[in-house]
């Protein structure tokens, strides 16, 4: 694993930034006044204790939640809120904390579904499934096969995802996100509930995606070992507030972070 230091980090341009974002549900404040940025090509971790607002943050970036205040700038375009379609169209893909796959479909179809936005042929060509529409389908299938090879799930491509063990489901979900050829990949606890071996595999895949495809990754993770190994920069949330932001080493040394995780004597 690589050891990021301050000089290699922070080279890329800013791909996405959130500024002063606040989100509340009724009286409950999920995120208050949080700003941070994600730079091109980095692996950015978002960590924090339970209920810190990490998943809410991803949902804001991805357009599932609309913040009451703040701005989101993605690829130079500033918005007060994202829409899921805009996010997907602009190149943001994601996975979910509790695997959200299309349970009635095979692994192949799940990953093919990730190609939806890349396919151009309209409704009537699709109805006919002939000529250009068929060529297009074949072409995208080739790309999906590459992803299947990459994730080493060749032998299960025809299996219905509902029958797969949890670890593999997570991998298929990653495959579906990769099929979108995203610029920014959001991973919500990619290793939750995995054993050590599965975690190592998943870490490997995440690093490979980052290196080979140059995909920028933002991930939420609870396993501190994994976070410190994988990420270039870490942002720490607690009760909806940002309490630290920096390299893994800086964050580890921060008193606020230690307090948040271990509690403070009152």
């Amino acid at each position, binding site marked *: 694993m690589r050891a990021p230091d301050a000089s290699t980090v922070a080279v890329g341009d800013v791909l996405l930034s959130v500024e002063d974002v606040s989100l509340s549900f009724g009286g409950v404040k999920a995120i208050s006044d949080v700003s941070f940025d994600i730079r091109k090509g980095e692996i950015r971790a978002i960590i924090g204790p339970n209920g810190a607002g990490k998943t809410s943050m991803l949902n804001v970036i*991805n*357009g*599932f939640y609309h913040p009451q205040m703040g701005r989101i700038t993605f690829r130079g375009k500033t918005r007060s809120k994202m829409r*899921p*379609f805009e996010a*997907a*169209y602009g190149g943001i*893909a*994601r996975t*979910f904390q509790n695997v*959200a*796959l*299309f*349970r*009635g*479909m095979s692994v192949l*179809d799940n990953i*093919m*579904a*990730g*190609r*939806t*936005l890349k*396919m151009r*042929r309209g*409704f009537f060509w*699709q*109805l006919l*499934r002939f000529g250009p*529409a068929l060529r297009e*389908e074949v072409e995208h299938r080739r790309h999906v096969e590459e992803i299947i090879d990459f994730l080493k799930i060749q032998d299960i491509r025809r299996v219905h995802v*509902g*029958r797969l063990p949890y670890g593999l489901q997570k991998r298929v979900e990653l495959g*579906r*996100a990769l*099929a*979108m050829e995203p610029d920014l990949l959001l991973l919500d606890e990619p290793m939750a509930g995995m054993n050590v071996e599965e975690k190592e595999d998943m870490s490997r895949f995440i690093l490979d995606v980052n290196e080979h495809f140059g995909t920028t990754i933002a991930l939420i993770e609870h396993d501190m070992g994994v976070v410190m190994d994988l990420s270039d920069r870490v942002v720490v949330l607690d009760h909806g507030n940002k309490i630290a932001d920096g390299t893994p080493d800086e964050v580890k040394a921060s008193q606020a972070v230690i307090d948040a995780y271990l509690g403070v004597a009152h």
Partner: protein
Amino acid sequence: MDLLYQIFIDPFVQMGNAPDLLVQTLWEGLVGGVLYSLIALGFVLIFKASGVFNFAQGIMMVFAALTLVGLYAVLRRWGISSGELAAYLALALTLVVMFILAWAVERLMLRPLVNQPDIILFMATFGLTYFLIGFGELVFGGEPKVMITDELHLPRGSIDVNMFGGFVSFQKLDIAAAVIASVMVAALALFFQKTRIGRALRAVADSHKAALSVGISLEYIWVVVWFAAGIVALATGIMWGARSDVSFALEIIALKALPVLILGGFTSVPGAIVGGVIIGIGEKLGEFYWGPLLGSGIESWLAYVIALIFLLFRPQGLFGERIIERI
């Protein structure tokens, strides 16, 4: 003993004695069954994509058929002398109307109710049913109408085939209905399985948030399925309308799709087909051979009994997905 004989032996003896009658019964059952399949397919489409049991499917069928006949009459009154031209023009316009209906349903009904429990959407389709009944009666009047069978070039008459020492008569209209229904079913099945939009439909059915995350637009998909269900409704409306007449009473037939769905599973296209055929044939055979035992008229409820018996053995339906969940 006598009763057992009448139930278990006698009907089969009759079948053996008059195979031509058996073939005739099977054929009628098959045609009825294929048409049930088509109605069931309308339900399956919408259920798959939005998890909503669309109570309005039956009335959509009536509405589509009424629109077709009504538009035809209007076009004729406006001076299109060729009945044929008017009929096909009316058909095209009816498709437009069904598209507008799909769009309006998405805009005015589904979108405001997004993320509501299924039961609320189900109730909303009840509302849609009564709206369509009222609106249909307002525009087209309540009296039964005759389907424009000849103008659409649907064949009339029958082909009599000599077999097993008797005649079996195949209505040409029935043959056409069976062919059209089969083609539609096959096309829809292929569309669902093999295309991007089909995949997107199934994706939406499985998980809204995951579908959104890969950039599938729920609004678009809903319009597509409701439109597809509208096309299916139009085809069924034409076929059933040609067999009897076009009236609001046809809506009752749509209820026959319920046992078909129970049998085939609410989410399965092949299930709708096989279920429809089983119900159609079972119903006719039961009526013809076992009906007299019970004083006839069993056709109206036999379908439900067949479905009930199947449920005892396969609660998820013939092709329904068995949901296995880790607990």
